[in-house]
Structure formats: C-alpha cells, structure tokens
C-alpha cells in the first residue's frame, strides 16, 4: 500500500511515529497524481514546488518539536473556487483564466496554519454550477471508479482526487449538494456544515445565502479533523456564526440506541435506482437493529425545494457574477464602449451553464416577475424550514439517499439541464434551511459503483450528525477502493 492511500488520521500517526516524513507523504501523493491525472483530470493546477517546500518545512518543524496538530504535513486538495494567494484560481472558467488572487480564503489560511499542505486546485463545474464536473472550461473530470462516468459535481475534482489518492482529503463547496453528491458518487464522506460555520471569505461567491465550504474525506474522523481546522467566526464574513462552536466529538461513540431516525418519504420512489434504495433500506434496518427507533416522516414542501432552489440560486448568482465584467481582473474582450466590452467579455468568458443561470436569475429578479418568482421562492424557503422544524419534533435526524442514482455516464445529462438539476433533489433542502448534512459511503451497486447515505440534522447539531455518521460508517464497513489505485 502506498502512503497516498492512508487516511488523514493514519498519516498523522505515522508522521509522529517517525515512520515517514511529510516529504515522503507528498511524494507519494504527487506520484499517484502523475499516474492518474491523464485519465482523471481531477486537478486544474498542481503546485509541485509549493507543496514540496511546505512538506520540507513541515518536517523541519516536527523535528524541532513544533507540532501544529493532526493536519501537520497532510496533503490536501482545494476546489478551484477557493482563493489561494499567488496560485491560479479559475473557478474552471475562461473568464478567470490566469487570475492569481492577492490573498488566501480564510478556510485556506486556516488549513495552512494547521500545517496542511495544499497539493493543488481541483476541477469543478464552472463557478460550481453543475452536478457532474462536465461544465468545466478546461474539460471534464472522470470518476476513478469508472472513467466512463462522471465523478458528480460540482466538487468533482476534489472527490476524484481523494478517491484516487492524489490527496488525503479535500475542501469543496456545497450550494445545493456539491460536496455530498460527488462524495457519494466517488465512495467518500462529504459534509456540508451549518450555514455560517465556515467563513466564506475568499470562496468565489455563487449563491451567498446557500454556499458553504466543507470537507471531502475517506472517513468521518477525517471530516471532523478538517472541519475542526476551518470552522469558526471570521470578521471578514458577516454571515459567519459568531456564537460558541459545538464540540464536534462530544457525542461520538454513543451509538444510536433510542435515537429517533426519520426516513424522508418524499426522497424515494420514481427516479431512484433500486440498488440505491435497497442499500439505504438495508442501512436503516442495521441502525434499527442497533436500537434506533425508525419512522417515516413526510416533509411535503420537499417536492418544490428544487423549484425554489432554481430560482434563488440563479438569482443570487446573477448578482454575484456581475463583478466579472473585464474591468478589474480576468478576461477582457475589446469593445467600442464600456458596455460593449463588458457584454462581449461575459458572453465569451462564461460557459453555457453559467450563462443559462445568469439569464434565469436575471429574469427571476426583473421588474414584473420578482414577486411571482424570487419573492415566492423565498417564502417557500420559509415553509421548507418549517417542515424541517416539524419533522425534528418527531425525530432526531433525517436520512435519505444522497443521490437518486449512482455515477452516470459522461454526456448522459449534458443536453437536458433539468435532468441534471434533478441530481441534487436529495441534497438541496439542507442548503435552503441552512442545516448540516453528511454523505457516508454504504456500499456498491451491482456494477461496482458507490452508493451514498445522507444524514441531515438541525442547525448547529454537528455533534449529533457526526455521531450518527460514525455509526453508519461502522455498520457499513465500506472499504472498497477504485481500481485505479490498486496495483
């Protein structure tokens, strides 16, 4: 086994035992990337030099007794919508080609301070808009489990890198499922924290009231390690949580006996693959056998969550992406007037999905339609949050599939935007409510493709969420790895 296949927790132990150094660890990861990248294209940029230098420093520090904690010397991948000082940040868009941010995102700065080593910047659907990582201006990422299939998205590059061993863990961003869905499709743990738990400063904004940064890892323990490093209030993000942080480990090991688990009725049925539903059912039975009290719960507004999302997210995106106009950074296409220059720059710089969403959002916000679309979507958002609150009077956590299907073939949904949008039907409600949710791998379908199990919990209930997730992980004892990493 290569060092690249260790979990973060295992690598942290090995580094402290002196079994290997941070330099050997980064070399193993870069070697894995060299072997897999031509096929997978998980990364847009690999910072060979920066990563090796950082690893050398990490070794020197450890040797001189400076220990920054469990992420010290750990190679991590960063989604390319997170600003990295001096390292190209493109959001997988032509409009930001060659952009070198003058600062680090807060989450990136905190990872560096914790001693983590950024390997590079991972591919995504342009500006995080998509569910397959096919909407990248620099070409799609492939799923390590089957390279004819997508890794999911939009954090598909981060998921593919961790699944392939070209990083031990990664950060993604989740606006409607963009961490959890690719994690599910790549056999990994993916977690979206409570809205505001992680600072969004330096995350290139897509839909500001929905976006959250979170971890993609091989284990629940690794997800906790990354979240512990990046969570916390940030004066630079006024929407970040200023209260006390929960102790994410406080409920670990308590099991699920007596815990009330709700199966979301609306997240099953037509459109869900039988193998996915069967695996979810089997996990629910296992939880029940451990003493959990399971019941079906109905959240009727989930049926319109997707519709509300596809008004709110594009509306916010159309405002956020107004800044890409050829004036301050990125691409400029010449024009006779400022307006012509801007309109040409934007039409050439943005890809089709981004243009589609900007048009959709502009329409939903325009005079005469604002209240019927955008205003109504925000009132429906309140109803969805009320549905959650009612459900949490009856149960402690909610569970569902993470995605209705396993990884789908490259190209299968690119011609039908609505079919692509349906990929996020299970994950969107948690973003609308601002609640935390996590996907844990629980098995493979008959074709050998991973299936994810989603657990949702009330706002700031991360300790409960991790407790249940750790139990799901133990019961599933999922230890399959994609072929690309087995020698």
């Amino acid at each position, binding site marked *: 086994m290569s060092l690249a296949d260790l979990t973060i927790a295992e690598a942290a132990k090995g580094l402290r035992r002196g079994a290997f150094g941070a330099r050997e660890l980064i070399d193993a990861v870069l070697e894995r990337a060299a072997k897999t990248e031509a096929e997978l294209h998980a990364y847009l940029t690999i910072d060979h030099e920066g990563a090796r230098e950082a690893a050398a420093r990490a070794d020197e520090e450890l040797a001189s007794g400076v220990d920054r904690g469990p992420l010290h010397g750990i190679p991590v991948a960063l989604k390319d919508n997170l600003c990295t000082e001096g390292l190209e940040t493109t959001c997988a868009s032509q409009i930001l080609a060659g952009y070198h941010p*003058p600062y680090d995102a807060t989450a990136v700065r905190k990872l560096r301070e914790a001693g983590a080593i950024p390997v590079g910047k991972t591919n995504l659907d342009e500006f995080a808009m998509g569910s397959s990582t096919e909407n990248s201006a620099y070409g799609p990422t492939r799923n390590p489990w089957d390279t004819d299939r997508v890794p999911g998205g939009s954090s598909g590059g981060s998921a593919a890198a961790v699944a392939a061993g070209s990083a031990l863990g990664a950060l993604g961003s989740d606006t409607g499922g963009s961490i959890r869905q690719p994690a599910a499709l790549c056999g990994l743990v993916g977690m979206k924290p*409570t809205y505001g738990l992680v600072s969004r400063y330096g995350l290139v904004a897509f839909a500001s009231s929905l976006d959250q940064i979170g971890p993609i890892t091989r284990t629940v323990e690794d997800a906790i390690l990354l979240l512990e490093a990046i969570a916390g209030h940030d004066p630079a993000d006024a929407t970040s*949580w200023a209260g006390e942080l929960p102790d994410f480990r406080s409920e670990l090991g308590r099991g699920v006996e007596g815990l009330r688990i709700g199966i979301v009725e609306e997240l099953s049925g037509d459109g869900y693959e039988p193998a996915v539903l069967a695996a979810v059912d089997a996990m629910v039975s296992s939880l029940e056998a451990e003493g959990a009290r399971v019941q079906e719960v109905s959240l009727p507004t989930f049926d319109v969550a997707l519709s509300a999302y596809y008004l709110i997210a594009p509306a916010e995106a159309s405002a956020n992406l107004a800044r890409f106009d*050829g004036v301050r950074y990125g691409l*400029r296409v010449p024009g*006779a007037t400022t307006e012509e220059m801007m309109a040409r720059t934007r*039409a050439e710089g*943005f890809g089709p999905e981004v243009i589609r969403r900007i048009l959709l959002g502009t329409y939903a916000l325009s005079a005469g339609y604002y209240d019927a679309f955008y205003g109504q979507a925000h009132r429906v958002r309140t*109803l969805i949050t009320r549905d959650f609150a009612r459900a949490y009077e009856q149960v402690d956590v909610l569970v569902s599939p993470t995605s209705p299907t396993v990884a789908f073939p490259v190209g299968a949904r690119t011609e039908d935007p609505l079919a692509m949008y349906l990929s996020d039907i299970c994950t969107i409600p948690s973003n609308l409510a601002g609640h935390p949710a996590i996907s844990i791998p629980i098995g493979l379908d008959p074709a050998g493709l991973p299936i994810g199990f989603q657990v949702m919990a009330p706002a700031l209930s991360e300790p409960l969420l991790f407790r249940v997730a750790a139990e799901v992980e133990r019961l599933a004892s999922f230890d399959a790895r994609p072929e690309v990493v087995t020698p």
Partner: protein
Amino acid sequence: MPIDIDISHVARLARLALDDEQLERYRRQLGVILEHAARVQALDTEGVEPTGHPLGFTNAFRDDQVRPSLERDVVLAEAPDHRDGYFVVPPALEGP
C-alpha cells in the same frame, strides 16, 4: 406549458452579447426550466415571511476602525488595463 420570455431584454440586462441562435436556444431551455420552477407558485404563502438569513441573523456589527487593505499595485496587477493607479476601460459613451 413552457414559459415564454423576452430573452433579448434579459440578455441586455445581464450584459451578455449573445447571437440570435444562442438567444433562441436559451429562450427554449429557460422556458422549460421556468415551467418547473413556477411550481413554487402553487403553494399558499399568504402571510409567510421570506427567508433572509437561513439562521435568522439580521445585522452583524463591527467597530468602525481603519485597517490596512490590499496594496493598490498588487490589486491592479490583475487588471486587464490600468494606468496611474486607475482601472482603464473603453469610453462609457460612444463618440460623436
């Protein structure tokens, strides 16, 4: 039924210089997506307050203190065109 929208007007508002073939394609696709999105209108939301911040935050205050910001030269280095400490753009109005 797909919703029919004035796509040229919307593209102008969004500052996107699209050709006729692109406009027609987006008009059709948006019509189908909006038909689905319009399902939010079926719900009775009489008296329901819209969600602002998901956790119900309102204002976040901080002390009004002068702090260093990014160096001007560092920021301008990323601009497509700049001169004397300013961003440079083509004329805002067409010439005579």
